[in-house]
Structure formats: C-alpha cells, structure tokens
C-alpha cells in the first residue's frame, strides 16, 4: 500500500466515523425537529428585516438569460392539459375559491384585463443556479381583493396541473402555499408572459406564480386553482407544498 493510498484510507475512515454519527442524527425525528429551529429563526428574522414591501432586485433587458433552465415538471402531459396546449389555453379557467367572499372563475383573457405588473427578475433555484427573465402577470393582490379574502384566510394555496411523482399515498400533485404577506407583495404576480410572449409549456404555461423574494420551488407552475385556506394541514402531507412534504423548508427566503 503506497503512502497516498494509506492517507486516503485514514481520511475516509475518520470521515465515515463522524459521518456515521451525522447520518444517525439526520435520521432521528427529534434531531430533525431541533434542526428545524434554524428555519424558523431565518423565517422570523427575514420577516422582520424584509417587511412587507422591500423589493427584490430588478434587472435590465440585457441581463435576460438566453436559455432559462426549466426544472421540475417540464410538461404535465395529461390528455386534458395537451388539449389546452392544442387550443392555446383558450378555455383555461383559473378558479379562486376557499375562504373568499366571491369565488371566481376567470379565463386568461379576463386575467389579462386585470391590473398587471412587468418585472425583470432573477430566479434562484434551490439547487444553486440563477436565471433572469422578464415576467408579466396579474398582481396577486388584485386577484385577492376581487375575490374578497375572508378574515379567517391565512394562506393562499396554488393547485397545479402537473403530477411530479406517483407515490402510494397519492400525494404527487404539485402544490404550493404562501402567506398573505407574500401574497400582497407588489412583485407577487401570476405570470402569463415570459420575455414578451406567453409562458411556454416548460416554464409553466399558461400561469405560473412569481414570488421574487423566495426560491424557485415556491413558484408553482401550471396553476389551475388558488384556494384561500386557514391552515396547511389538509393539503398534501400537510407541510405546505410538494417539496415541503419532502423535507424542504416552507420559508424559502434563503
């Protein structure tokens, strides 16, 4: 055994000893909930620091990424969805219901007539990469006002047309939830245009959420329904989103 080999083995042994300890800790539910303290501190401190209206940085046309990386589902590919693609989403309906005074059902044309916002923003994936694009869409605050949120509403849930997984418990449908502070933020929009043309299938056609102060997985694609809810418990596995149900942080501001 040469020296390099020997050093590698010692390092690997030392690593696996401490790693074994970390692995066992990572598997323990108690340790898990203790480590979640980090997320709740981040959430609280960022809420205080950011407030309701601090804006995510906006960029100029020249900063737009040529090949914006699609991620997650890149085509829902159901019979129903494919029919919508064929008809260019002419019959797509966005439902707004749950804890609202006036449940809505709106076509894309009706959404396009509502107050909009256009912004060139950076999309940060939880994996680490970033892409910049120009988004135009209806302000979520305008939709919420039109539907009239009830006092009991605390979150908005976004139900999507794509199924990302086929687990035995049936919770493979994509969904996301945000609180009302984020829902009312001026840059939070339900985007129908990307870089000047309708959002394409890979990026969430015909409607995707833009939540500019958080990571990409919060920005649900293929949105069919927005439901105002008072708790996350009855949705999916109860953690507030497809990825949250799989261990990711609900507050994705970092």
């Amino acid at each position, binding site marked *: 055994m040469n020296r390099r080999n020997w050093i590698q083995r010692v390092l690997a042994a030392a690593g696996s000893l401490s790693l074994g300890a970390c692995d066992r800790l990572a598997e323990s539910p108690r340790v898990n909930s203790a480590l979640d303290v980090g997320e709740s501190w981040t959430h609280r401190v960022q809420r205080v620091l950011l407030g309701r209206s601090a*804006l995510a940085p906006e960029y100029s046309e020249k900063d737009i990424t040529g090949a914006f990386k699609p991620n997650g589902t890149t085509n829902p590919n159901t019979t129903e969805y494919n029919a919508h693609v064929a008809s260019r989403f002419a019959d797509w309906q966005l439902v707004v219901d749950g804890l609202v005074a006036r449940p809505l059902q709106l076509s894309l044309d009706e959404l396009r007539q509502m107050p909009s916002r256009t912004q060139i923003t950076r999309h940060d994936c939880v994996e680490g990469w970033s892409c910049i694009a120009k988004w135009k869409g209806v302000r979520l605050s305008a939709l919420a006002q039109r539907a009239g949120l009830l006092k009991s509403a605390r979150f908005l849930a976004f139900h999507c047309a794509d199924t990302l997984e086929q687990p035995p418990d049936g919770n493979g449908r994509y969904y996301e939830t945000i609180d009302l502070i984020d829902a009312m933020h001026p840059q939070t929009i339900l985007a129908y245009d990307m870089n000047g043309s309708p959002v394409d299938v890979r990026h969430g056609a015909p409607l995707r959420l833009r939540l500019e102060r958080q990571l990409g997985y919060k920005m649900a694609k293929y949105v069919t329904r927005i439901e105002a809810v008072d708790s996350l418990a009855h949705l999916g596995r109860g953690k507030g989103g497809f990825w949250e149900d799989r261990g990711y942080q609900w507050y994705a*501001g970092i």
Partner: protein
Amino acid sequence: MKHGRIAFYRHPWPVRIAHWITVLCLPVLLMSGLQILNAHPWLYWGQASDFDAPFISFASGPGPAFPSWITVPSWRDLATGRQWHFFFAWIFVLNGLAYGLYLLLSGRLRRVLAPTSGQLRNFRTSIVEHLKFHFPHGEAARRYNVLQKLSYLIVLFGLLPLMVLTGLTMSPGLNSRLPFLLEVFGGRQSARTLHFLTACALILFFVIHMIAVVAAGPLNELRSIVTGWFVIDKEEGRREPP
C-alpha cells in the same frame, strides 16, 4: 511542574468555548455545503448562471461530484443538507458575534491580537524563522508572534465574515433588503463562487494551523485550548525577534 518550567493562563474561557463551537460548526458547514454544491456542481461569475461557460465544473461521470464520505448527510439529500447548513450557520454566526464582542470589550483584540510596532518591524525575520520551523520559546512564547497574529486577524475579520456575507448574498429574501451586497460581490453567482473559494481558504488555514500546532508541541497547545494553561520554559530560550 518540571523544574525550570512555568504554566501561564493563556486562553480565558470565552476564547476556548468560542474555539470549540467553531470546531464543531466548520466541518458540518463544509460537509453540508458540499452536499448543497452536489445539487448543481458548477460555479459561475455574475448575477446569473451561464450554463455553457461555468467558471468551475466539478461534475464528473454519473455519480455525485463530491463523494458520500465528505458530505452531510452521506446520501444525496439537498433538503437535509440545507437544514444542517442553516442550523449550524446560525450557531456559527451567534458564536462569532459573541466572540467578536468579547474581543473588543475585553481589550484582548488590542492586547493579544494586534501586532506591536516592534513585531511589524521584524516582519521579515519572523517569516524566515517560521519557514525554518523555529518557534518562540520561553518568555517569547507568552504572546503570539506576528505571523500568527496576522493570520488570526485575516481569518477572524476577513475570511469568516466573508463566508457569512457571501452566504447571505445568496438569499433572495435578503437581496431585497441588502441589495448592495450583490453589488459588492458582483452578483449572486459570483457570491456563490466566492463562498466556495473562501471555504477553500479556510481549509488552507486549518492545514497550516494543524502543522503549526504539531510543530510547536501538540500536547501543550491542546492543553492550552482545552484548559487554558500553557507551559513555557522559565529561562530565556533562543533569542527571538521581538
């Protein structure tokens, strides 16, 4: 105590506690950081990712870029890697703030870490002595030598804050409140790259730190950072640069 040697109290308890909390945090932060980097093992400069022209690519073959023995957890799990990274980042930052406050308020920064003018004048001699592995003995070992002071200052007030700030610059939430950080580091992807490079610099410091501890007397050094007590020769040793 052997004849001719004296023990002196070198590291007060706040220093020792801060040191060992850091020793706990940094390996976990490094290894959970590599777990996170495994999710997209490419680094870029600028605001966004130019996928066709990464600055560094760690991807090789079908397996993960960084092997399981160097990541936390050992299996591929970005969510758990992030959970550990941010928890230990909080501990690390709170510990660092408390230690920084202690350094300032106790006067230790000026008394123990700031190089004296005499030390700075003899900077060159000190470098030569170090390269020969000649370490101070006797009374001269009561205080840090100039290279030691400068490297501690660079780590404490350069690399470690840089680590935290480049990390915070990657937060889309904080970008809305502290957009100047993006300007300072040249964009989010630049900050991510600098975060990695600074981690490499810290590993380099760790290696040099370990070599120096071994060369200067590992048991004595270890005793001093555990109990606070450091043993030196009573009589004046080899002549040292002031």
